Structure formats: structure tokens, C-alpha cells
């Protein structure tokens, strides 16, 4: 018997109160589905499940307070066990096993079959033009069909083609993707609450799964914005507790360094000039990546202070402090910040910030950040002197990019610069190493191509 336990959403979390379940006994869930909501000191967080399963029993009813690590749900085998296979689907699934298309489908090889009439030398372009025969084993499918099949996670070898020469075309894929898309429990709950028909909804999640993002736009406007009354209050209390603990327990020291942003900005402008909006890179992504890469070399700023002393983290998950409009603050983590390409990081930030503000963060994002960055953005102040978020041991602050007089090689000029500050935990690190850490960040910002 498998079990789903109360997740730990931060080192300081002792327990959580179950607010709501989106699943009931008999429901089937897939890895990554949101199954319910738990209220913690940090606010209400959506709980994701990390395996395919069928729900057998709800152990913790809504309203109960459950310690971290205690049982919430009992799970059974996933439906048919078929999902396992889908998960294990290799990158190029059909290529080896699928029989080659019947020979009759393949146009005859081009050759000088027809006698040419006498006259000027005819060009080979006179022969009827037809696309080359498909590679053996490769399914003949149009680009539009391939793209959509990839998005829907559909195996083209299993789709019957109705297009030219039996090619699979877009409509074939849409038809094949039709009948039984997986619907996440949350999406189903929203649909039920508002009486929505999901049969014509096109899923945009993995394997065509219908997710909340697909369903929410259908909900009548008036039904939105029913933020629970106490949410703001809970968050204020959580911030108060964490910040008071920080100032009570952590002997902060503060350092500041001014970095030249000329090259970073020029590099970013050039890079974004060639990109469509969807893949443009946010300035803050550059900052986060520079911090994350630097943190690899300075383990004393990347980790957690526990009862047993300092424990450096093995990966770099940078928490980004996101200010909520109208007050409040939340710092969800971007996992493996140092290892992700800038455009991917940027997309993750835009998505995460938007969800943080909509009160839709997921439990995986609330797992411990190892280091926090606070960037007050283009309308913020020039310098941020931060408060460390326990149990972390450092916070890096970025001010607004401003023009400052800049002396270099005996000459004075005006440069666009940014103030980088470090609030460090003196129990773990000292000013010298902290200064080197800041210098490394500034160096990376001056060499954006290394990011």
C-alpha cells in the first residue's frame, strides 16, 4: 500500500491544515497533478503528487491539521498500468519497430524512363515533381501534424494518414488526440463547480492533458476573485514570524558592490532583438543566473542553518522575492537555477511570478530555496539591504540600474550600473569571502556571454 504524506514546504514547517481535496476515492491521478490545497504559515499551497496512482482513501479530511510526514492519502496502482509505458516512451518511438510503409506508397524512383522528344536538351525539371520517398521507417507526416503530435504526445505511427500519399496531416492528429484526454483533478473540480463542458476543450498540458489553465478561461468572470478573506492576514503573520526570527537569530553583515551593467544590457538588447516575445530574456534572469553560478563556488552562502549547524546545499535553487501588489511577499524557488539556460529561466520566472500573484504556487516551488535574491526592479530603490530568509544564510539584493559617475583608468565617465548587496549570516561566512562572492557576480554581469 502506497501513501501520500504531508509534504515539507520549508524547513520551518511543522504541520499544515488540509483545506481541500480535488480528488476522491477511485480517481486516477498522474505525476504532477495538483491533488489538494494545504494551508501553511506561508499561505495556501497547492499539493502536487509525484507518482501515477489511483486514490484509494482520503485519510486526512479537510480541516484537519497534519504534521509533516504523516499520511494524507492512500494510493493504489494506476489505471491499467498503461501510463508507465507512456512515461517510458523513448524519444524516437516507432522508428525501429514499425514496418516500412508498403512499397506501393513509395513513388517510383526518378529516372529517364520516358523517351525525350528530339529538340533542345530538356531540363530534368520537366519531370513531374514529387517529394522524395520517405526514409524507411519514418512516418510520412506533414510539419503541421508533427508539431501538434509532439505537443499532444501522440505517436505518429499510430495515426492513420488521410493526406497526400497517405501522409498524416493536422486533422488526423487532432482527431487522434480527441477521445480521452486526461483531465487533472483540479481542472475537473473547476469544471464541475461551474458546470462547464470539457468535451470540446483542447488540453495544452503534457500529452494533451486538460489542466486548470485550459479550464479557467471558461469560468465566468464574476466567479473569479473570491480570495479567501484570511489569506492576506496569514501571509502577513508568516512574514512577521520569519523576519522576526531572522533578526533575532541571524547576525547579519552587509556588503555592497557596484557593477557595470553596460555590457550586460547591450548583450541583452542584442539577444532580445532577435527573439520573439515568447523567448525574450528578462533582465532579472541574468541577475539570478549570475548569482546562482557564483553561489556554486561559495558554498557558505548557499544552504541552510539547521539545529545541527550549517548544511551547505548540493544544488542551487534561488528563491526570487516576489512582491504582491497591495502588500505581501513570497519567495518561490527556481530549481537548479545555475543549470538552466537563460531563456528557459526567463520563461520560468514570468510563469512563476504570475502564478505567485494569482495565489497559485505549487508545493514543488515552496521546497526550500537555498539562497534568495531580492530585486526591486526598475522602479525600485538604488540599494536593497535585505533580511535573510531563515533557514537560509544569505540574501543578494539588486537595486535599480542607474547612471553613476564612473572612474576607470584615470578617466571619469557615466555608466549604467547596479548596486549588488549581500546580507550574509556571520555564523557561516565572513566579509572577505562574501566580498569575493559579490565580485564574482559583478564579473559575470560584465561577461554576459558566460551566463
Amino acid at each position, binding site marked *: 500500500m502506497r501513501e501520500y504524506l504531508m509534504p515539507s514546504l520549508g524547513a520551518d514547517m511543522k504541520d499544515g491544515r488540509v483545506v481541500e481535496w480535488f480528488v476522491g476515492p477511485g480517481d486516477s491521478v498522474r505525476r504532477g497533478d495538483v491533488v489538494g490545497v494545504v494551508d501553511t504559515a506561508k499561505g495556501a499551497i497547492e499539493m502536487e503528487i509525484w507518482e501515477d496512482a489511483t486514490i484509494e482513501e482520503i485519510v486526512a479530511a479537510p480541516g484537519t491539521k497534519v504534521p509533516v510526514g504523516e499520511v494524507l492519502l492512500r494510493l493504489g496502482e494506476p489505471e491499467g498500468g498503461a501510463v508507465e509505458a507512456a512515461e517510458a516512451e523513448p524519444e524516437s518511438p516507432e522508428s525501429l519497430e514499425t514496418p516500412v510503409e508498403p512499397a506501393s506508397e513509395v513513388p517510383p524512383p526518378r529516372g529517364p524512363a520516358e523517351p525525350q522528344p528530339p529538340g533542345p536538351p530538356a531540363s530534368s525539371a520537366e519531370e513531374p515533381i514529387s517529394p522524395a520517398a520517405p526514409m524507411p521507417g519514418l512516418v510520412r507526416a506533414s510539419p503541421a501534424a508533427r508539431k501538434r503530435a509532439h505537443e499532444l504526445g501522440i505517436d505518429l505511427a499510430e495515426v492513420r494518414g488521410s493526406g497526400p500519399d497517405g501522409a498524416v496531416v493536422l486533422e488526423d492528429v487532432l482527431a487522434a488526440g480527441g477521445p480521452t484526454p486526461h483531465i487533472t483533478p483540479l481542472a475537473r473540480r473547476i469544471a464541475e463547480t461551474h458546470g462547464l463542458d470539457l468535451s470540446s476543450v483542447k488540453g495544452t498540458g503534457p500529452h494533451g492533458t486538460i489542466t486548470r489553465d485550459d479550464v479557467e*478561461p471558461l469560468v465566468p468572470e464574476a466567479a*473569479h*476573485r473570491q480570495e479567501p478573506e484570511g489569506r492576506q492576514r496569514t501571509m502577513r503573520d508568516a512574514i512577521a514570524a520569519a523576519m522576526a526570527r531572522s533578526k533575532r537569530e541571524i547576525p547579519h553583515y552587509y556588503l555592497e558592490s557596484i557593477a557595470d551593467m553596460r555590457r550586460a544590457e547591450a548583450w541583452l*538588447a542584442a539577444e*532580445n*532583438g532577435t527573439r*520573439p*516575445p*515568447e523567448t*525574450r530574456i*528578462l*533582465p*532579472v534572469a541574468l541577475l539570478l543566473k549570475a548569482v546562482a553560478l557564483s553561489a556554486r563556488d561559495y558554498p557558505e552562502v548557499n544552504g541552510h542553518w539547521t539545529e545541527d549547524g550549517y548544511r551547505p546545499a548540493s544544488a542551487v535553487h534561488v528563491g526570487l522575492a516576489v512582491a*504582491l*501588489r*497591495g502588500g505581501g511577499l513570497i519567495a518561490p524557488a527556481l530549481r537548479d537555477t545555475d543549470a538552466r539556460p537563460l531563456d528557459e529561466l*526567463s520563461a520560468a*520566472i*514570468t510563469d512563476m*511570478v*504570475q502564478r505567485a*500573484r*494569482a495565489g497559485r504556487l505549487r508545493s514543488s516551488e515552496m521546497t526550500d530555496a537555498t539562497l534568495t535574491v531580492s530585486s526591486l*526592479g*526598475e*522602479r525600485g530603490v538604488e540599494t536593497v539591504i535585505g533580511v535573510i530568509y531563515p533557514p537560509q544564510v544569505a540574501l543578494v539584493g539588486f537595486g535599480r540600474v542607474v547612471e553613476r559617475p564612473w572612474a576607470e583608468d584615470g578617466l571619469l565617465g557615466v555608466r549604467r550600473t547596479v548596486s549588488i548587496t549581500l546580507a550574509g549570516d556571520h555564523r557561516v561566512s565572513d566579509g572577505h569571502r562574501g566580498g569575493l562572492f559579490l565580485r564574482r557576480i559583478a564579473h559575470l554581469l560584465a561577461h554576459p556571454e558566460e551566463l
Partner: protein
Amino acid sequence: MSQDDIRGTVLDVLRRVAPDVDVAGLDPAIDLREQADLDSVDILNLVVGLHQALGVDVPETDYDELTSVDRAVSYLASRINEQRG
């Protein structure tokens, strides 16, 4: 596409980008960043949303054109005309 259609689209995209902002209550002539506390993440989301809804790719150098609803509408209208012409 009329100016009204463009305005409708801009407001829809804003609503999606910043669900926590009362879009209907915005003054179309006032800077969105000041008025609705939008930041660069929101602006990029807005640009992406407009790209998808209208097919207009707003380059970074033109982000300032989106700072108020009125300004965004007239800028997008001229860009749409340009693309047609």
C-alpha cells in the same frame, strides 16, 4: 480591426497577465506601472499576450509605448496598419 477591438484585446490580455489588478477600473491615460504596479515581468507577459492575440511583435525598444492603455491602443493600431500596408 477597429480601435475598440484592439482596446478590448489589450484589456483582456491585461486581465490574464495581472489577474490581481482591477482592469476595468484602470484610467486608460495613466501609466500602468504607476497605476497598477506592473513590473518588467508583467510587461513581458503583456507583450507575449499581445503577440499571440494580435500577431504584433513589440520590440523591446518600443516597450515604452505600452505604458498606458491609450498609448498601447494607438501604437498597436499603427503597427497593425503597417503590417497590412
